[in-house]
């Protein structure tokens, strides 16, 4: 089975210049937990609801004054739409992560592929990824 059969194709994104409060509003309104960060349509990072809590709220910063570029994870693990889901699962497993940005060959984002998506395709692969992940309870 290929990634494009299971991935979510509606991708909301944000820029490095937006502030973290704007990111949290977007995550709330769109009912999502992560946002790819794009600069001139190029993928430069990813930010999650958990990042906002750990890197902004926990140290008492004002969310309106912190740009996304300060807290985003720059090293984004990616896969291609036509990758086999077993290969995508392996990337998640090796990096101890639960979602991948799906990109085309120009590094433009076309979707996100999460462990929930993976579970719809293979219980076994999703289980292996969960076991490998560092548990965040």
């Amino acid at each position, binding site marked *: 089975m290929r990634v494009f059969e299971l991935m979510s194709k509606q991708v909301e994104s944000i820029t490095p210049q937006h502030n973290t409060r704007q990111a949290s509003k977007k995550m709330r309104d769109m009912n999502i937990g992560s946002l790819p960060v794009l600069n001139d349509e190029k993928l430069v990072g990813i930010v999650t609801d958990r990042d906002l809590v750990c890197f902004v709220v*926990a140290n008492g910063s004002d*969310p309106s004054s912190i740009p996304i570029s300060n807290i985003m994870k720059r090293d984004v693990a990616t896969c291609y739409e036509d990758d086999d889901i077993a290969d995508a699962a392996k990337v998640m497993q090796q990096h101890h992560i639960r979602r991948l940005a799906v990109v085309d060959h120009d590094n433009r984002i076309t979707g996100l592929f999460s462990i929930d998506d993976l579970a719809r395709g293979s219980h076994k692969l999703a289980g292996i990824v969960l076991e490998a992940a*560092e*548990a965040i309870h």
Partner: protein
Amino acid sequence: MNICDIMKRNVFFVRPNTSVREAARLMHDEHVGVLPVLDMEDNKVIGMITDRDICCKVTATGRNTVMTTVADVMTKNVATCFNDQELTEVAYLMASHQIHRIAVLDKDDKLAGIVSVDDLAHRSHDLASTVLEASAAPAH
């Protein structure tokens, strides 16, 4: 197998009057995404607060993180299970409530532990994936 065989026993928790900033600090320092909220007097679980609750109800709204308390933003009436329940039963409970973590209570209704979908995966890939699949909104 019972849920008490796989649950985490040393659970970090907060009180209703704990500030959101303090809860966030605990989530960061202890690498947890959810904290049970225990009543000041009888130690019963009166709610749960997640990193997502803080993102959606505090950061997004611009509320003050010191003045806002856990009680203001926690989820009340959360699903719980008991420590003598079967793994399968608890997994279906989690799936039906679309949650990835659940508080485990002892026979006196006191917090005994917490179980996540990760813990389930160590015993059964099928059960863990059933819980993941049930999440209505994909956890992107």
